[in-house]
């Protein structure tokens, strides 16, 4: 069924005829657009792409993508995707999930997915709120958040998705935002290119129930001062004029004036350095606080490890090689039989 004559795919080929039903102004629109823009450039046959989602606003995503897709049940997309990828390793499997879906009801599945290192992409739309159920706090909401279910303010400490993922031994963690299409596209490409579980956290604005949750990080006027755009092999620098840098004093990150240090003395980003990635994951300050560390965006951590499905299917192939293809009659009879005449 090779079809070499067709024109290259475009974003339009990935759109469906279904009306997109997110609220006007939702950050999900941008993410959908960037995914539809990136997928045609990846040289993957469209029929080999599968998007599996759970439940929540973000999880409507598969309906808007003209690929194979499943809108599964709350929190379980990683488990469904695991079964699919294990048995069909040639497919490009994407999980679309939200902060409640992945980190609350599906918390168990996401950590096990990451530790197994199954080669899927996880797009974690983090809007720090429950949208589809109309505005309760989520496991990533900041403390003291007043919502419908927490009229006196929330008490729970929020999850730090980067730290959680590294704690589960992820082989890839990146962060991006809905308001930076170019960066998001680049991160989607990096996630897809990673052999293993890739967790891409996308800060996504819910303009109805949690508008402006990431405002300082996404607003052009404040963004440069509170965000840190990571690049492998480059020093950690930020600020409107990139005038600030981060240097490590032992294990303590310090914000310094770039003018006072040569770039070689600054923290040089190394995606493969777990210890540094763990420090970066802890750059989790409230950007409104004085002296807050900037929030890192980009690939915090990426290493190569054998994937689960590769090792699993190697075992199956080895068994076939060593024992030969199974023979049903031998299996059923076993080793001890007797005749009744």
């Amino acid at each position: 069924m090779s079809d070499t004559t067709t024109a290259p795919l475009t974003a339009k080929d990935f759109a469906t005829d279904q009306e997109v039903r997110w609220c006007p102004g939702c950050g999900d629109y941008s993410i959908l657009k960037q995914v539809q823009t990136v997928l045609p450039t990846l040289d993957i046959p469209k029929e080999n792409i599968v998007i599996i989602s759970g439940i929540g606003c973000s999880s409507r995503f598969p309906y808007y993508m003209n690929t194979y897709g499943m809108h599964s049940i709350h929190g379980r997309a990683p488990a469904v995707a695991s079964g699919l990828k294990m048995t069909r390793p040639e497919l490009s499997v994407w999980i679309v999930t939200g902060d409640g879906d992945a980190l609350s009801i599906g918390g168990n599945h996401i950590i096990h997915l990451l530790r197994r290192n199954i080669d899927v992409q996880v797009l974690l739309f983090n809007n720090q709120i429950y949208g589809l159920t109309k505005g309760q706090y989520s496991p990533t909401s900041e403390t003291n958040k007043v919502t419908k279910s927490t009229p006196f303010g929330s008490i729970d400490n929020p999850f730090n998705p980067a730290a959680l993922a590294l704690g589960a031994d992820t082989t890839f963690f990146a962060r991006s935002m809905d308001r930076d299409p170019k960066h998001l596209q680049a991160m989607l490409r990096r996630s897809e290119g990673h052999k293993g579980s890739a967790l891409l956290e996308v800060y996504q604005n819910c303009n109805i129930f949690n508008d402006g949750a990431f405002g300082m990080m996404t607003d052009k006027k404040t963004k440069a001062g509170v965000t840190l755009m990571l690049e492998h092999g480059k020093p950690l620098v930020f600020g409107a004029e990139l005038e600030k840098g981060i240097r490590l004093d032992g294990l303590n990150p310090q914000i310094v004036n770039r003018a006072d240090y040569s770039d070689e003395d600054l923290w040089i980003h190394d995606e493969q350095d777990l210890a540094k990635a763990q420090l970066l994951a802890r750059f989790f300050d409230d950007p409104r606080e004085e002296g807050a560390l900037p929030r890192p965006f980009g690939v915090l951590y990426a290493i190569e490890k054998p994937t689960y499905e590769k090792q699993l299917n190697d075992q199956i192939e080895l068994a076939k090689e060593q024992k030969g293809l199974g023979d049903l009659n031998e299996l059923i009879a076993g080793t001890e039989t007797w005749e009744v005449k």
Partner: protein
Amino acid sequence: MAQPIEIVEEVIIKFAGDSGDGIQLAGSQFTNNTALTGSDLSTFPDFPAEIRAPLGTLAGVSGFQLRFSSNEIYTPGDACDVLVAMNAAALKSNLNHIKKSGIIILNTDGFDAKNLRLANYQDDENPLDNDSLAAYNVHKIDVTKLTREALKESSLGVKEKDRAKNMFVLGYLYWMYDRKMDTTQRFLTSKFGKKPEVLEANMQALQAGFNFGITVEASASRYRVQKAQLPKGTYRNIQGNTALSYGLITAAQKANIDLFLGSYPITPASDILHELSKHKNFGVTTFQAEDEIAAVSSAIGASYGGKLGITTTSGPGMALKAEAMGLAAMLEIPLVVIDIQRGGPSTGLPTKTEQSDLLQAFYGRNGECPLPIVATSSPSDCFETAIEACRIALRHMTPVILLSDGYIANGAEPWKFPNADSIPALETKLVNNIENIEEYLPYLRDKNLVRSWAIPGMKNLEHRVGGLEKEDISGNVSYDPNNHEHMVKTRQAKIDKIANFIPKVEFIHGDASDDVLVLGWGSTYGVSYSAVEKLRAENKKVAQIHLRHIQPFASNVEEILNSFETVILPELNNGQLSKIIQGTFNKEVIPYNKIKGVPITSNELFEFISTKCT
């Protein structure tokens, strides 16, 4: 002079001891050896939930009952002819379970002051010293001492030597029943081949037990049970969970698709995971998931990708899987959910048998969610029932629930196994002619209301599925009220139509002209068979049918039920099928319920049915 060997029709032996005494191993070894003699047999392993329950206590007694016979048999029997009691607790908890003048083989070392106290014997009371066992033929053997004596040359520690006690007893029984010991010797060699000292000790203990029999033969009789006149063919011994595993592999091969098992360990289902994980060369993928929900969800993922997705569990696990089973029902993809039932609710009685998940299988999901249910009736029947569950799942694009139980799962019996070539191929709904499809309509149905199965990788058939209600035919999300009602009714009708694909129920005993019908499902098959057979031998007009398909019922079940005024329904629950029969056919049945974690005995059922025969 060698004592003559007495030929007996049948024997029921119960091995009993601490759960660390190797009772299950000795029992299953004796069973495998018995199978090769050609007797018919049936087993009932019965053990505590704890791996090493408190030593010496009544709660810690592990038992293994084996019945073997020169006649065809259908149950592991009621009271035993021979009890092997490794300690006082084992004796006490089984004494009312042994025939008068039966043989009791006692390990005297298990009757010291501590063991007697733990078994709740009163002060100074020792059944070895008083006349409480006068009605029995007691073989007192100091197994511990004799085993240590036999192994005095071994460099193993005392604790390790004592672990071979079960082999000593097994050797003694092999002598008593005039057996060769080659099956166990082969087993020990393969199990302990890498630990020569342990192997040697077990072999020596086994031989010492046999030799002990020869030495004391003056005081003990020997017995032999002749071959049973089973139907002609080639047989093997099989356990329920093993047969079930083989059935699943066979089904996948016959459907020409790969098998995927997503499972989370749970008693008494784990052995299926263990068994299937050995057979990777059949293209079998097994996945030990992080929990029950991930187990079923991964199987759904595999089925979505065109594999035969299976998940195995027990009652508490199926409760956790309920939402995902509903998803699979909405997706209309093949999936087999295997529930090896145990005592419930909640954690209940993990190692004890019960048939109490039937209503869960029927109704245990949100919304209108009918699923086909099949039930297996004996260890060897698991093979065919597993194939049947897969056949329905693949042919009708639906999750199917297969119900077994702990009694069937761990029990063993001779199996006249089929030639695999004679098993018909399984049909799937996989889309194969994809060239001519203009617009793929995932919920377009055939005349049996079954949709087609397009899987990722098939060009031009990209489509979305999910748990939201679908528009008929297109499969797009739809909140339309009329569409929803139509889809609910369609999904029900799809399940109902499966009745056209399942065989009619046939009488096992008798026919519609009899007075009383014994209706059953699942593991009560054997006990119903035995009880009805005995009643018919007394010219009682009792018939028997047994259901494999419970949802939908075979098309003639109603007709059969209505031709009897008296229908007796034995179940290991509080009357679950009785409720369903009443609700479905408006037919009053007489339930016979037992909820004690153990099977119904043929005597008690015989007595009960007798009272209903006029």
